[in-house]
């Protein structure tokens, strides 16, 4: 594990490290997303790219739970479904504009996060995987059987998004809406990851007992990760409804949860650039493999296996080191000079 080339001190990896620490990385990604339609803007291309963006949002959301906090979640699509259905039902049956459904979706996601996380997060991780798997199926089957959700045929006629009278429901408008929302979602998840809460998530992932010994209530902090993931998933669900204008239970099968998880693992658990890359890879590759027709998922599977063999920590693993800022080093020198004795609080 220590001989992995991503961590060995070669020139390439030093360059890679620097690239990763580049604060403009996010802006570069944003620019790429903003300029992509200028290369190709067919309806098909726009729809593939929009789906890729949604996938990115789902992956960074799941990354909070799986990557940061180390909790295995096999039913993440449930939160996605809750977001899509809550906003879809409010929009089609009660005529709400999609934007107005956002607060309700957030509340629904938080409640769902607490309902599923509350009792299960006391369990050990392997139980959690099974329970979340069941939860994903329960949500889908419930949607399949309720009348308000349209039963097996689902909901159709979900309107597009309008903002201050501007109609963003066309493919271009929707794409750029997604660029903005997903960019904020990625930034937000990354910032949470680099905060007190984000550190607590990682402490739990690394050693739950040691985290408890530091006074971290691991149950509450895990629940916070769950709720965070649920909100990200729920909000992505709104965009999903807006994109397809129709949703039905088969849109939220276990395959979705599995693919999102795959994006996180493939990209590099806990790494924002990695997870973004993984999500794009997972969502776009099958489209690029359309030539292979029936064999496309077969080839897709083989490629995934190859990647995981050669880059076990993911395409773009989480940054392992922290460069001490110049300020910190200055501080340290001052301490050395003063032979740190009385400086301790």
């Amino acid at each position, binding site marked *: 594990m220590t001989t992995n080339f991503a961590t060995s001190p070669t020139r390439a990896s030093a360059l890679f490290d620097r690239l990763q620490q580049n604060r403009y990385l996010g802006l570069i990604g944003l620019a790429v997303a903003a300029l992509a339609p200028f290369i190709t803007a067919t309806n098909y291309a726009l729809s593939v790219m929009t789906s890729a963006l949604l996938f990115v949002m789902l992956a960074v959301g799941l990354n909070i739970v799986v990557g940061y906090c180390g909790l295995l979640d096999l039913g993440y699509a449930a939160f996605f479904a809750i977001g899509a259905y809550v906003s879809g039902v409010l929009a089609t049956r009660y005529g709400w504009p999609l934007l107005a459904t956002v607060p309700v979706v957030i509340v629904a996601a938080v409640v769902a996060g607490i309902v599923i996380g509350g009792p299960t997060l006391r369990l050990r991780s392997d139980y959690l995987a099974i329970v979340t798997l069941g939860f994903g199926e329960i949500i889908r089957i419930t949607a399949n059987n309720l009348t308000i959700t349209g039963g097996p045929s689902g909901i159709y006629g979900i309107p597009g998004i309008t903002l201050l009278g501007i109609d963003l429901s066309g493919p271009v408008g929707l794409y750029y809406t997604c660029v903005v929302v997903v960019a904020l979602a990625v930034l937000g998840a990354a910032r949470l990851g680099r905060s007190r809460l984000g550190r607590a998530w990682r402490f739990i992932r690394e050693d739950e007992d040691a985290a408890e010994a530091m006074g*971290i209530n691991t149950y509450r902090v895990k629940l916070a990760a769950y709720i965070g993931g649920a909100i990200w998933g729920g909000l992505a669900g709104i965009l999903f409804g807006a994109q397809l204008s129709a949703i039905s239970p088969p849109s939220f099968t276990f395959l979705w949860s599995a693919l999102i998880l795959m994006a996180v693992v493939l990209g590099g658990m806990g790494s924002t650039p990695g997870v973004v890359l993984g999500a794009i890879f997972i969502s776009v590759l099958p489209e690029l493999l359309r030539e292979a027709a029936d064999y496309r998922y077969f080839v897709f599977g083989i490629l995934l296996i190859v990647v995981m063999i050669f880059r076990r920590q993911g395409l773009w693993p989480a940054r392992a*080191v922290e460069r001490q800022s110049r300020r910190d080093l200055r501080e340290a020198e001052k301490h050395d000079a003063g032979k740190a004795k009385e400086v301790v609080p």
Partner: protein
Amino acid sequence: MSTGGTAPLLRVQDLHLDFGGVKAVDGLSFQVNEGDLLSLVGPNGAGKTSAFNCITGFYKPTGGSITLHGADITGLRPSAIAARGTSRTFQNLRLFGELTVLDNVRAGTHLRLRQNALDALLHTPRFRRSEREATDEANRWLDFVGLRGDRGGLARNLPYGEQRRVEIARALARRPTVLLLDEPAAGLNYGEKTELLDLLHRISGLGTAIVLIEHDMDLVMQVSRRIVVLNFGREIADGTPEEVRRNPDVIEAYLGKDDEEEATSEEMMSRE
């Protein structure tokens, strides 16, 4: 044994812990006073770590009570007990291996940092300030324990002795009133042990009470103000190093009944 009128910082009373048939702790009582440096010693399997685990909430005692600052903490969850002023290290080093050394020590500052999720999302001045505080404090504690290795690197890449220091720095960053150290000298070389001795004195100098589990009797005799000796989950002696050294029960526990004439308990114990 009590020193003056003030209530003890930590009081363990008639503590019991059973694992099925095994009585890991069997009626243990002792107390730690303000600024104490107390060592908990005893043969392998005597129940020292189990007692720590009860005090810090990792095991639920099957009987007895534990009070900290006069408040009952028996059976609280570990984080709640830590929040009330205890902090500990583990016998088998439990660092966050895949995280940086600085992050490991920042863990100790968790409860004091004033920032919420919204501050983090918006990078408010409050967020920046508290992050800076966490880093500064982590650096100060790493200076205090005398860490020489790379602080920005992964904790698991440090040599063993340095990892031990980081674990103590992490526990200190919690700013405990009672610090519980489970065999901090295990696996250290002679030079490192000398430095540990110095570190223990300096921690004590901060006014922090220390409870030390340790097999190295040289270290224990030099550093302790009081020693509690455990055998089969029971306290068999409690006193100054001098008193414990001469205690016949201690000699018996370490030697068995037959050959107690010549060796002192100290000599025997340091053969561990």
